[in-house]
Each structure stands twice: as structure tokens, then as C-alpha cells.
């Protein structure tokens, strides 16, 4: 049995990635009432875009930049203009269902045009172990954790400390008034889609070296991020962060102490318990909303 310390570090590292994905998920919900069930596939795809760039000869660093830019173009701009905007006119639920269809579409397209096999993916942070307090800790876990935390801190600073962030919040919390006082609401919404695309591309870059690039990996990731968002509180960015870390740790502990077969069940059970006893999420505030 691995020791608890290692499990916690590894759990926090995957949890931080879940948090990135969950934060993007709640951002889209808050600003545009988009429930993106393709969020997991959004994390799966950028790794393949980067692999494709490397296939045609780009060095890893260039592939990363291209992958992130392409993600923002496809999963940010095109996603909003071609799917969200037209479907939103029909309501929140048709849009949510359309994102499910998109998830299947992305998954099958990757399987068809790239590979059904899992491909290895280079790590952006150095691999190997370092010794902390007498424990051998994987450098990759530490690197992932640091990068993900930096990204989340950067985002919360943007949202809470800049006037651009306040405008984004205004556009999300009360679009009518935001429009009247002159906030360019449409641009703010587009910006959140681009931010989400950046976050999933970053998550893809960090998690794929650990779990390999596979067309089906979005299922697990999307589910984890969804659970993280709901557990933490759907309407709070910091809720999504806490939820992500919690699910990551829980997931890892469950794999070690319960059974690898049931690891996916534990977050699910946790989700059900949270929904039953604290439906607004651990950090969420109850709010009334008509959909």
C-alpha cells in the first residue's frame, strides 16, 4: 500500500487539474447559462491537437502554443458562435443536449481520424522524484500542482481585482443593468468562452502525460469536473476549486484503500450525499433562479 502522503500529493495534483476544468465549467454557466457536457472532451482534444502539430514536425513548445491557440479558436470562439448562440435561442436544456451531442462528435472524430489507441504524451514538467520530508514525491505531481494553482490564482485575480473582471462579473450577475451602464456584455461572454478554452487546453497539457492521450478520456474528466463543480457549489469559482481538489484526493484515496474498480464510484456516492444534504454545494449559496 502506498503511503498516505504520496497519495495526498498525487490526489491534489489531479484535483488541481479537475479544478481548472470545473472552474471553466462554472464560468460558462454563470455568464451564459451554458451547461457544457462536452467539457471532458474539451480537455481530451487539445492534447491531440498538440500531438498533431508535433506529427507535422513542430517542436514541443510550439505545439503547445499552437494547441492552446487552436483550442481557443475551436473550443472558445467556434463553440460559442456555431453551437451556443444558435442553440441558446431554444433554451438552456436544448443547448445542454447539443453539448452532449458535441461530446460524442468530438470523441468519435478523434477515434476516426487520429487513433483509437492511447498515445503517450510528453510531460511539460520534469519527471522523476524528489525527496520531501523523507518521502519520495513525484516532481510531475508538484509541477502540475504549482501550474494549476498559478492558473487558478491568476484567474481569480483577474475576476476580482481588475475592472475587466468586475465587468465580467457584472455581465454574469445582471446582464440587463450591465448593458445599460455600457458594459459590452457580448464581448464579456465571449471572453469567458476563450478563458474556458484556455483552461481546458492547460488542463489537457497537464493531465495527458499522466493518463495518456485517448479519445475516451474525456468521459472520466468531464464527470470529475462536473462533480467537482456541483460539490463545490455551482455558482462559485472558489467552490469549483475546492470541489476539484476534494474529488482529486478522494479519487486517489479510493483507488488505494477501496479498490481501483470502485474508484469512480466513490466521487459519485459523494456527489449524491452532497446533493441530498447540501444541494447548493459545500461553498455555494442557495439562489433562486428560473430556467
Amino acid at each position, binding site marked *: 500500500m502506498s503511503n498516505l502522503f504520496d497519495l495526498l500529493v498525487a490526489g491534489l495534483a489531479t484535483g488541481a487539474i479537475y479544478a481548472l476544468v470545473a472552474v471553466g465549467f462554472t464560468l460558462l454557466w454563470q455568464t451564459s447559462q451554458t451547461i457544457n457536457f462536452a467539457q471532458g472532451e474539451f480537455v481530451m482534444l487539445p492534447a491531440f491537437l498538440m500531438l498533431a502539430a508535433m506529427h507535422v514536425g513542430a517542436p514541443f513548445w510550439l505545439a503547445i502554443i499552437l494547441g492552446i491557440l487552436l483550442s481557443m479558436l475551436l473550443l472558445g470562439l467556434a463553440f460559442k458562435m456555431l453551437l451556443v448562440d444558435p442553440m441558446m435561442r431554444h433554451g438552456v436544456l436544448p443547448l445542454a443536449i447539443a453539448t452532449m451531442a458535441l461530446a460524442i462528435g468530438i470523441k468519435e472524430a478523434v477515434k476516426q481520424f487520429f487513433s483509437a489507441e492511447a498515445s503517450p504524451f510528453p510531460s511539460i514538467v520534469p519527471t522523476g522524484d524528489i525527496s520531501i520530508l523523507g518521502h519520495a514525491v513525484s516532481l510531475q505531481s508538484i509541477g502540475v500542482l504549482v501550474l494549476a494553482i498559478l492558473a487558478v490564482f491568476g484567474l481569480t485575480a483577474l475576476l476580482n481585482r481588475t475592472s475587466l473582471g468586475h465587468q465580467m462579473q457584472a455581465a454574469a450577475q445582471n446582464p440587463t443593468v450591465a448593458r445599460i451602464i*455600457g458594459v459590452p456584455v457580448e464581448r464579456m461572454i465571449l471572453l469567458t468562452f476563450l478563458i474556458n478554452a484556455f483552461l481546458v487546453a492547460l488542463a489537457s497539457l497537464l493531465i495527458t502525460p499522466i493518463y495518456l492521450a485517448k479519445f475516451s478520456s474525456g468521459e472520466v474528466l468531464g464527470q470529475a469536473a462536473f462533480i467537482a463543480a456541483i460539490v463545490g457549489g455551482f455558482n462559485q469559482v472558489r467552490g469549483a476549486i475546492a470541489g476539484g481538489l476534494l474529488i482529486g484526493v478522494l479519487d486517489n484515496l479510493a483507488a488505494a484503500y477501496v479498490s481501483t474498480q470502485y474508484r469512480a464510484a466513490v466521487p459519485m456516492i459523494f456527489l449524491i450525499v452532497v446533493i441530498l444534504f447540501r444541494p447548493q454545494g459545500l461553498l455555494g449559496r442557495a439562489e433562486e433562479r428560473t430556467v
Partner: protein
Amino acid sequence: MSAVLEVTGIKKTFGGITAVDGVSFDVREGEILGLIGPNGCGKSTLFNCILGQLTPTGGEVKLDGKVVTGLRPSELNKLGVSRTFQLLQVFPKLSVRENLILAGQEHQGNMASRLVGRSDAGLTDAANQMIGFFKLDHLAAEPAGGLSYGQQKLLDAAMAFMGGPRLVLLDEPAGGVNPTMLSDLKERLVAINREKNATFVVIEHNMEFVMSLCSRVMVMAEGKVLAMGRPDEVRKNSAVIEAYLGH
């Protein structure tokens, strides 16, 4: 005294229903005009037509002698026209101060400049002044959504006054506000009206509030102007009494 706002023959129909039927009036510089009338008489629709939230079916709105009919709310906001809402409209998760700063901000600048700082010092000062003026000091850092209903109404009004508007349209500012806070609100409105030379149009059902606050009162019924005059004149008008009490 010159007219800040001139409204001529504003008409608004929804399908077969005429909500506002050829309303004309003007608002003089520095006055507080009350707008009263039974529910559904078209007051809020008239407001929305003036403010560009609805496009009038016919008629003209002039601000300082210039035609502004059909301009968007944000464009009117830039020209110095602001409003408060019948139902609360604040940004619930931002603090009171942040709400005020947002309301006073110029939003059309480039994206990069807005990334740099929180906001400029002048705006923060203006927000702090408004906080002091409306006696919201102890709540400045609280999220607006946590304030009581009456306090949110005060904030809503304070937001409308950020950026020194020429004309403010207030839609039921007194609705649901307790009597103590109401006299506070009235006192604040009168003070702003005098000190900042802002012109107000106020929709309100609370008669005592309207009659004591406004210099003139316009009464609407079934989409038309029924009467216009000083509060004491309007109060005695038999057509007004009939509209309120029925036949």
C-alpha cells in the same frame, strides 16, 4: 427655465394593445416631476420608451433639444440619462463600492487598459463620496446581495447618480422601503437635486412621498395624460379622483 426632456406624442402598442397613447410632456431643468397613475396605466412602458429599452411606435424624445428617440440605453447613459428600477437591479456578488464604481465607469475603452488597474482613483473617490452621501459607509465592502431590501434600494439610487447624470428616471424608489429609510431617501434625493442640479422624473405609488417630493405631478390613466400640475392642484382634480376611485 429650459426643458431638459421633451416628450412629444409618444405611443407604444403591443399587438392590439395600446400601452402608451400619445403622451406629451416636458421636464424642466432641475425639477422633480412625479409620475403617478393606477397600475397598468403605462408609466413604466413610457419610461422604457424614453430610455431606449423599448422602441416607441410613434413620437419623439428630445434631450436638451436634441432628438434621442431610438438610442440604446447605454448611449443615453453616456449622454447623462440614468435610471433606477422598480425591481432591484444591483450586482449581488460585487461589493457596494464595486457596484458604484462599475456604474460610474467608462466601459468602452480598450480591453488591455482595463486589465491593469482596479480602477482609477477619481472613480473610487466618487464612489466613496456616494457611499457617504447615502450613509452606506458600514456596508461599503459587503456584497450587495447581502444588503436588506431598503439598503439595496438606496444602493440602486446611488448607482444611478454615479457619473453626475443630468436626468434620472426613478421607477418606484419608495416601493417596499420602510418609513424611516423612506424619509432618509427623500432627504437624499432632495439634497442631490439641489446640490448637483440633477433633474428627476419619479414614478411612485406612495402619494405622500410624491406629493412632498415633487414640484409637479403628471397623472396617467389608460396610456394617456390625465392631468399635470402642482401637487395640490392635481390632488383636487376630479378626473384624477375618478381614475383612482373608479366610477
